[in-house]
């Protein structure tokens, strides 16, 4: 007997039943096809966009992010330049291909711009995000040809460009947007009718470790700094 059959057989023997069929299996399939929410904390309830933005910014700062706010996407390159200069960081960066059309770097000629993924040599990356979770100051990033995952981890400094309309309350709201955005053509959305990217990263603050005598250090293996540029839209 294969290991698979053995293990499934052992589980069924311990549970005192055969493989589920009929209604029992149908109910479980339904639970997967229409994922229900469990208890959601009240922390984000009843907040409008402004309220969610305030909570997100507070939480992100609490967890060691820095946040700058700008009026429009046009103002992002100058905000990046100003941040690098303020932090005494080299004036060069690698941007996600997804941002290449939206950001006009001609305003900031002192910056050296590369587009693509990271080979580990860059000091700073600039990426978009898929959504942001106000509940815990968390960014959600998804991998794609235009948003390679390496940018989220390899450079020492990660700058995330976040639009105000991308901020949601609890994590479950971010999943709802994710499912809708990735729905396969001809299906309603939930369950197995959406596509998963290779990687989804939920990121809450810069990389850290407490492994040396439980003293928290930033920049263990991932970015030492996580800077959010929040764009009003």
């Amino acid at each position, binding site marked *: 007997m294969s290991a698979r059959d053995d293990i499934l057989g052992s589980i069924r023997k311990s549970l005192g039943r055969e493989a589920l069929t009929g209604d029992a299996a149908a109910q479980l399939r339904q639970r997967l096809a229409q994922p229900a929410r*469990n208890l959601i904390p009240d922390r984000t309830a009843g907040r409008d966009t402004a309220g969610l933005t305030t909570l997100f910014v507070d939480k992100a700062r609490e967890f060691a992010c820095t946040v700058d706010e700008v009026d429009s996407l046009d103002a992002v390159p100058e905000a990046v330049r100003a941040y690098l200069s303020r932090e005494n960081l080299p004036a060069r960066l690698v941007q996600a291909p997804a941002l290449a059309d939206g950001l006009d770097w001609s305003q900031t000629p002192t910056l050296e711009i590369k587009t693509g993924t990271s080979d580990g040599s860059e000091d700073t990356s600039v990426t978009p995000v898929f959504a942001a979770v106000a509940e815990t100051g968390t960014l959600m990033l998804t991998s794609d040809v235009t948003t*390679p995952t390496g940018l989220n981890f390899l450079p020492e400094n990660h700058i995330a460009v976040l639009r105000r309309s991308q901020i949601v309350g609890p994590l479950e709201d971010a999943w709802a947007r994710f499912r809708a955005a990735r729905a396969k053509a001809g299906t309603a959305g939930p369950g197995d009718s959406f596509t*998963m990217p290779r990687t*989804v990263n939920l990121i809450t603050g810069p990389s850290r470790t407490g492994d040396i*005598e439980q003293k928290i250090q930033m920049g263990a293996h991932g970015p030492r700094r996580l800077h959010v540029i929040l764009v009003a839209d």
Partner: protein
Amino acid sequence: MQSTSRNFKDNAHKALNDATLQRALLNVKSGFQENRARTVAGLPEFERLRDAGRDIKNHVLANLDFYLERFEENVTANGGHVHWCRTPAEAREKILEICKRREAKTVTKGKSMVAEEIGLNDYLEENGVEPIETDLGEYIIQLRHEPPSHIIAPAIHVTREQIAVDFRREHSDLDPNRRLEEPRDFTDEARAKLRDKYFAADVGITGANFLIAETGSTVIVTNEGNGDMTQLLGKAHVVIASLEKIVPTLEDASTILRLLARSATGQEMSVYTSFSTGPRRSEDRDGPEEFHVVLLDNGRSAMLGTEFQDMLRCIRCAACMNHCPVYEAVGGHAYGWVYPGPMGSVLTPSLIGVEEAGHLPNASTFCGRCESVCPMRIPLPKMMRHYRQREFEKGLSPQKARAGLSVWSYVATRPKLYRLATRLASGLLGRLGKVKGRLTTLPLAGGWTSVRDMPAPEGKTFHDLYRDRQAAKGGRE
């Protein structure tokens, strides 16, 4: 991993007399306990979330075969492979087979307790593949050739002075006079040392905090980012996980995530929670070419339907050991196998047998703090009691203890004899200890009185007092 759980008593003695270890263990209390308390206080729904988390896992365990099959379907649909392994040996062989096929020289590893459980590093090394631990704590103990002493802070037993010695010995290419004092110095040095290893690795191996049935995703929760680089930059990504890590949906994982980091490090969220689904897509610019999930049973399927089933709800947060007076006193290595503390005292005998690990469920004061902080409401003390009972039934407890318990049960099941015996004993001991009010030695209890005194009984037995009080009450009414 070879167990030394049989030697728990000796291990514990050594640990108590190890001054360096005792200094290192002070960090358990100051860090984890206070941080957990603060962050739990910041979430009014925490207790109800514990109920929700428990219910999700109970639902999964009752339908484990169904969800594992859905998980496998979805991994396969996304271009990955699931390998079912009954035993540690099968899991090791499967992983080595993947490494060999990729002609791997080095593999990077994210922190995984299941990898420790199957003794993966030694096996790979014996077969010509070099494993490189990338979590800072795991990296340190790999240099020291030690097992982890804590499930989320593997090097918590090591002081920075000891790490400085290890780093100078192992990083002999660096300036021998460099400064290695502040935690920053160590973190920077390890970061620089490990950077190139990620890119050179042929295979990246991680564990999983969750397996998601709905999507076929594996999830790791980390703070350093090493696990992410391991699964991104290795040419193949191998996930080693045990069966019970399954949850049905992204929403179910989200509920348990609210419990996990708060219970573990006292964070609201760990820095990185990453969902991996299949290998890189054809158009992706980075990511592994292959994706494998090695699913390990190792006795877990047999725990279902027994009084130890609830243990399979465990999410490996370490809150139980962080709040355990025994763990705090002796540290993790004394437990002698992979999983220390209260969760280890239940899981270890379940996985390697009560014959080997019978001491562990006895290493408890039954203070109940473990259960009171367990995010999944696992009744740890109750299960330790079950193991004590099994140990007794199997005739594994010491002869003296068995004889004592036989006498006790003979007397305690005969009320008249019990009252007579306790009245005599309390009267006798009361007279013996009358002068000092305490007894410094007791027959048959030398071990107990060698480190503390017993207060002398002050006259009446509990039964007598109770009877008197009931009588007084009756008189008043």
